[in-house]
């Protein structure tokens, strides 16, 4: 009996020793030079090997990042935190997450007080079920029903239902996974570029008069935004204004002009151009290019930006050959129509 215990101990121990030793030697002999940054990135990644990035596991993604094939914010699970860590490893200061990130935004402002119900709904309390009954309880056929199908489907709990019956999306938490967009039966949620701040929050394609009848904050297709836009970025199509996100430069002129407030923007993020006096040579290029004539100054003299008129479109910066213009964030909000401004003041 003791003999068997001894032999099994010895043989298994020996086997373990041989295999372990063999592997140790093999790992030394067969070591492949890997980029130390790749190893560091693997450490920084969540390590779940979920494959959501499209690469085979976290190590696959780390290699792609090191080779420059994947952006540093490619991990949708880690979000901004992990992207920041990877940026540090890769020696890149800007994470680029705000620029490339897509964020789901609710393109409807028809809450309980603004978009009246045409009928009372008693039934299964999901947007999907309600939308099947004569297009839902809301008077506007395009309005958010507000039963929170998007809240339930969001995997990162970025959506909460506001008191006024409209979902609120936490833009920091949103990973742009598109699940809420697919779930919403009214299609009022859309994936929009994270860098764009101006949005038409209405999708009603009825005639202006009909929209006004069912909702006090819907787009009535008055085309004032189209006229005021210096960049040809907003157009009324099928009785509703649509922003070309490629062309829009967040100048927010249309937001100020919109009579129904159906276009919104985060005014605290609006920027202002400031001329660096030491660098300006008075070439007048900026003054000529400014769409709102906010820059004045004589030839060969330092130019001045009228802060009241400047819309922060950034065209003058592109035109300036001396890097004499910088953009600064407007410290005070100009309007108090939305909560964001009121809070920042």
């Amino acid at each position, binding site marked *: 009996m003791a003999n068997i215990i001894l032999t099994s101990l010895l043989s298994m121990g020996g086997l373990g020793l041989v295999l372990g030793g*063999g592997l140790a030697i093999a790992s030394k002999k067969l070591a492949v030079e890997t980029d130390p940054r790749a190893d560091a990135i693997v450490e920084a990644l969540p390590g779940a090997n979920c494959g959501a990035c499209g690469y085979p596991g976290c190590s696959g993604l780390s290699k792609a990042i090191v080779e420059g094939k994947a952006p540093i914010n490619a991990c949708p699970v880690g979000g901004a935190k992990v992207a920041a860590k990877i940026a540090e490893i890769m020696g890149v200061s800007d994470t680029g997450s705000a620029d490339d990130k897509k964020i789901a935004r609710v393109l409807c402002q028809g809450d309980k007080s603004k978009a009246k119900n045409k009928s009372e709904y008693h039934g299964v309390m999901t947007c999907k079920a309600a939308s099947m009954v004569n297009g839902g309880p809301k008077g506007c056929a395009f309005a958010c029903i507000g039963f929170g199908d998007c809240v339930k489907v969001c995997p990162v709990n970025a959506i909460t239902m506001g008191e006024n019956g409209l979902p609120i999306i936490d833009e920091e938490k949103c990973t742009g996974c598109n699940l809420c967009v697919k779930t919403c039966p009214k299609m009022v949620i859309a994936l929009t570029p994270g860098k764009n701040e101006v949005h038409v929050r209405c999708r009603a394609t009825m005639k202006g008069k009909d929209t006004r009848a069912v909702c006090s904050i819907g787009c009535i297709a008055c085309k004032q935004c189209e006229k005021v836009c210096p960049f040809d970025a907003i157009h009324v199509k099928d009785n509703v204004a649509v922003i070309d996100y490629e062309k829009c430069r967040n100048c927010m002129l249309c937001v100020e002009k919109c009579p129904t407030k159906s276009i919104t923007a985060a005014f605290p993020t609006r920027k202002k151009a400031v001329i660096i006096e030491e660098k300006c040579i008075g070439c007048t290029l900026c003054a000529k290019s400014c769409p709102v004539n906010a820059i004045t100054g004589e030839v060969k003299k330092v130019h001045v930006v009228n802060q009241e008129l400047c819309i922060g479109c950034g065209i003058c910066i592109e035109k300036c050959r001396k890097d004499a213009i910088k953009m600064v964030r407007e410290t005070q909000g100009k309007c108090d129509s939305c909560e964001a401004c009121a809070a920042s003041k």
Partner: protein
Amino acid sequence: MAKELFFIIIGAVFVNNFVLSRFLGQCPFLGVSSKTETAVGMGMATTFVLTMTAVAAYFLQNYVLAPYGLEPFLQIVSFILVIASLVQLVEMVVLKISPALYNAFGIFLPLITTNCIVMGAALLIPMYKYNLIKSIALGLGAGLGFTLALVLMSGIREEMEFHDVPEALKGPAIVFITAGLLSMIFLGFTGLVPLG
């Protein structure tokens, strides 16, 4: 001898297919069979590891376990040990010799450690008292059989994407039914070669 080897390989591929007749390795069979491309990759990697394991299992059985009478209680433990280190070694060697092949195998290679076909084949070798050549043939046949089942399944699943599956059967349900039908089809090979 050649005839026997032929029977062993054909037997492992068709008659006693490890997936469809012995019902081993169901996890990768259902998990990695959604695309033909990955199915082929997984099949090739498994075949490679299976053949290597067959050799290792033969030597371990005949030179360590059997001579010292440790077979009854240390067989499974020692096989797990050998398979795990073998896969590790194979991974290192492949990475060194052919990074392209390593990238093609990707995540599949380490996953094979826990594939029960590998264990099953290793345990069958002492059971049938195969010699070294026959063991290699069994490992190779088992791998090829696994590849065949995986590729067949992935082909059907790719085709199924375009068809109107009843709501209740969508997802894993229809895949399991398909696997069952495939298994029944493979019963048709029974009697093709003498058992054992």
